[in-house]
């Protein structure tokens, strides 16, 4: 699943900010805030192994070039680094790269790289390496999904010298640097890439603070400290290698077991924390909470506008006005999820939100449905038109929707019934879910999409993305085919003037929201819980996955 969480790899500002916070704030880490640390600001201690338990499915390949989903980003963020990253303000800043220039026509980018960076296998990081990495992504044999899409506009690459690469595009791409900040476009050693895919999947070689030592399938991945590491940007985090000796990356799919392991001390940090455990942890002295919403799209329900009944905007608006999700969100998520009224994540600086469009109004819903011709009701209370019932198919992936979310959909189903909608929930495993989507057999769907930057709007709402890939997959689930919207998205992706981009994306979001193509729920939830012995937690990649260069284990 393409993910695009927001992460803030500390650049100079962020790292300094973090360090200051640690020293000054002390115990004042706000619940749900992104700051770590509690207790006194003791000096970092070197040594110890962090045990991390992930609730996501174990990746099938540790190289995020292959495929490209969030579990891969989580683990690869430890041993691979990207050309660019995000700072705390959400701005894209150089990391392995030192800067970039773009030609006036937007078709040629000149990428400048930092000097003196080496991979853990000894090879140097240079322009040829970057070229090899992008070629690897574009190679069909790699079977890259997310990374492939991110660099799809790159046509030619010219190694000018060791630290300069000239990139030629097929059409202007304002989101190129954002793409370069995602872990699925991370930099690996060119020498390592030449190995067989099986070998590279088992131990990718990067420049990060850790490196892959071993991978016991269905059990854990062992990472060890990269002794030669120092942050490429001076001041971003402490100088020199990580404090931790290593990380044991385990996979515990069961939420209750995962949390039990954290409480028992068997595990130091977990992800995919469930709302009730977050609430419990917030009251606990022993467990800290890192809230890092993923960038890209918000968690929203998309209405399939390509067929009846949602091809009629009035019906779409009626549905959005009829359902009550606020009560459910507050009770099921115990206040850990905030209602969103935007198509974009709250960490996207160019997000636009309009709460007024989404207030519950059952009368308006009924009126709209009557207007749209659905004015008859059958014996069960559902609306009908020409003898056909107002039924909505809602396939739900049990892999992607946590239990609280599944319950929320049930509440949505119950409140929609009041206006006469029949919502049919269908719980499916991932394969079957993709199958149903590919065959256009849905009216409602919740499909998360993580990507850095507002260009995700193009992925989700441009007409070209209703055309299925050879596998049947397409990303524009709301099937929005609006030429005006297309034009806005295309011109936004072509201009590098940030103000112009923001204006165009705002207009685009207005069209999406006012067309009632989506029902925004909340940010893509990305909660981590960790034991307080773990200090220096909080740094994340551009996709909001945690990194541990500055993290250390306090001796009890």
């Amino acid at each position, binding site marked *: *699943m393409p993910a695009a969480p927001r992460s803030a790899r500390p650049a100079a500002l962020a790292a300094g900010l973090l360090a200051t916070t640690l020293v000054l704030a002390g115990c004042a880490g706000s619940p749900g805030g992104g700051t770590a640390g509690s207790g006194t600001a003791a000096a970092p201690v070197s040594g110890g192994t962090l045990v991390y*338990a992930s609730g996501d*499915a174990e990746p*099938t*390949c540790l190289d995020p070039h*292959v*495929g490209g989903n969030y579990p891969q980003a989580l683990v690869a963020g430890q041993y691979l680094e990207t050309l660019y990253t995000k700072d705390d303000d959400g701005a894209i800043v150089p990391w392995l790269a030192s800067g970039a220039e773009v030609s006036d026509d937007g078709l040629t980018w000149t990428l400048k790289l930092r000097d003196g960076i080496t991979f853990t296998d000894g090879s140097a990081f240079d322009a040829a390496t970057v070229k090899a990495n992008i070629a690897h992504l574009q190679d*069909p*044999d790699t*079977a890259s*999904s*997310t990374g*492939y*899409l991110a660099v799809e506009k790159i046509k030619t690459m010219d190694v000018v010298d060791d630290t300069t690469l000239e990139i030629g595009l097929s059409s202007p791409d304002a989101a190129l640097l954002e793409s370069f900040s995602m872990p699925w476009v991370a930099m690996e050693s060119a020498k390592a890439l030449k190995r067989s*895919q*099986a070998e590279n*999947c088992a131990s990718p070689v990067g420049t990060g603070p850790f490196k892959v030592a071993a991978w*016991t*399938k*269905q*059990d854990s991945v062992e990472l060890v400290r990269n002794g030669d590491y120092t942050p490429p940007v001076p001041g971003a985090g402490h100088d020199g290698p990580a404090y931790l000796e290593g990380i044991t990356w*385990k*996979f*515990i*799919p*069961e939420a*209750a*077991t*995962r949390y*039990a*392991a954290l*409480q*028992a001390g*068997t*595990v130091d940090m977990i992800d995919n924390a469930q709302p009730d455990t977050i609430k419990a942890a917030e009251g606990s002295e022993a467990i800290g909470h890192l809230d890092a919403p993923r960038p890209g799209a918000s968690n929203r329900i998309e209405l399939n506008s390509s067929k009846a009944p949602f091809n009629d905007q009035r019906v779409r608006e009626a549905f959005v006005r009829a359902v009550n999700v606020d009560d459910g969100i507050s009770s099921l998520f115990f206040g850990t999820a905030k209602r969103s009224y935007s198509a974009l994540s709250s960490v996207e600086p160019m997000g636009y939100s309009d709460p007024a469009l989404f207030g519950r109004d059952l009368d308006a819903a009924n009126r709209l449905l009557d207007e749209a011709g659905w004015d008859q009701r059958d014996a069960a209370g559902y609306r009908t038109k020409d003898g056909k019932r107002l039924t909505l198919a809602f396939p739900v992936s049990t892999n992607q929707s946590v239990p609280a979310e599944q319950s929320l959909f049930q509440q949505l189903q119950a409140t929609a019934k009041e206006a006469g909608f029949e919502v049919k929930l269908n719980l499916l*495993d*991932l*394969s*079957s*879910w*993709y*199958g149903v*989507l590919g065959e256009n057999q849905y009216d409602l769907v919740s499909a998360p999409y993580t990507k850095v930057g507002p260009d995700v709007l193009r992925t989700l709402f441009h007409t070209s993305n209703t055309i299925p*890939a*050879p*596998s*049947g*997959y397409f990303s524009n689930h709301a099937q929005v085919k609006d030429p005006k919207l297309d034009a806005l998205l295309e011109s936004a992706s072509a201009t590098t003037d940030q103000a112009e981009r923001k204006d165009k994306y705002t207009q685009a979001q207005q069209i999406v929201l006012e067309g009632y193509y989506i029902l925004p729920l909340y940010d893509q939830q990305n909660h981590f819980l960790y034991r307080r012995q773990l200090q220096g937690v909080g740094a994340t990649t551009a996709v909001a996955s945690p990194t541990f260069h500055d993290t250390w284990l306090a001796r009890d």
Partner: protein
Amino acid sequence: MTEQALPGLPGGPGGPGDRAEGGLPHPGGTAVVPGRPWRAAGAWLLRRVGSAVFVLWAVATLIFLAIRLIPGDPAEAILGGPGSQASAEALAAARLEYGLDEPLWVQYLSQLGRLATGDLGTSYALRVPVAQLLTEQLPGTLALAAGAWVLAWVLALGLALWSGLGGRGAAVVGSALEIAAASVPHFWLGSVLVLLFSTAWGWLPPVSNGTAAGLVMPIVTLALPLAGFLGQVMRESMLTAMTSPFALSARARGESEAGVVLRHALRHAALPGVALSGWALGSLVSGAVVVESIFARPGLGRTLLQAVTLRDVPLVTGVALVSALAYVVVMALSDLAERAIDPRIRDR
């Protein structure tokens, strides 16, 4: 007072044809030719091997057909799972490499050929030889299943003995316990155990950490429902045996109650349990899928679940074949055990 036994279970006591003396009539059928034990053993072995080969072939065929019928493109499964945005070239290349374009019967025969030579293929999703995955995952599940089986037997026999010796009260309590145990789903039991023994009391680790303590809860979770079922079956057999004429005559000869139980009734109690071994194995493997998921234990159960979800044909086939092989072996062993316990069985 005593429940009727389950006649009809192979070799079970109280079956039709049993005489009032509760002794050893020989039901019809071909008897062993006395004086040629090796020939009989050889014939038995040949039959077993033949049946094993047949079962494995049938399982491979069934899985092949079943998975082919499941909607979805296997080429997608090869290229990183469902919804992969793989390009057309990549899909085409995968189809070529794995021979997915060829007619069904060609694919079937080539897979059979590979299996016959012991080549289990490569997992689509994990890109690792299936044989390697199986050898890695098998010990975990084996430990779990074996431990659970032993525990289930101990509990079931224990309850049966207690009922036998304790009279009606014990029988009722035992029965109630067994029904409760057999009605509890694994996932629920596992969750409750984790809640009590890990979160609340902190006695046991919630996930496997290589130590024996980490095995306790998974084994108990897997064993209890099976113990409930086996216990029911065994208790009935035992009680019937205890009231049968041969037990009567044993008591008449001056044997103590405990003696009757241990020397005579125990065999009768154990027999249906042994007969159900094959079924018990299937039940343990099914339960292992859930238990391994809950306790995050590596094993064939989790592998199987993931493989079916990802439509990973070679891996599903591999796990199914291993299970079938285990079943055949267990059946053969249980057959031997039955013969050892029950001298009436000679015609198989």
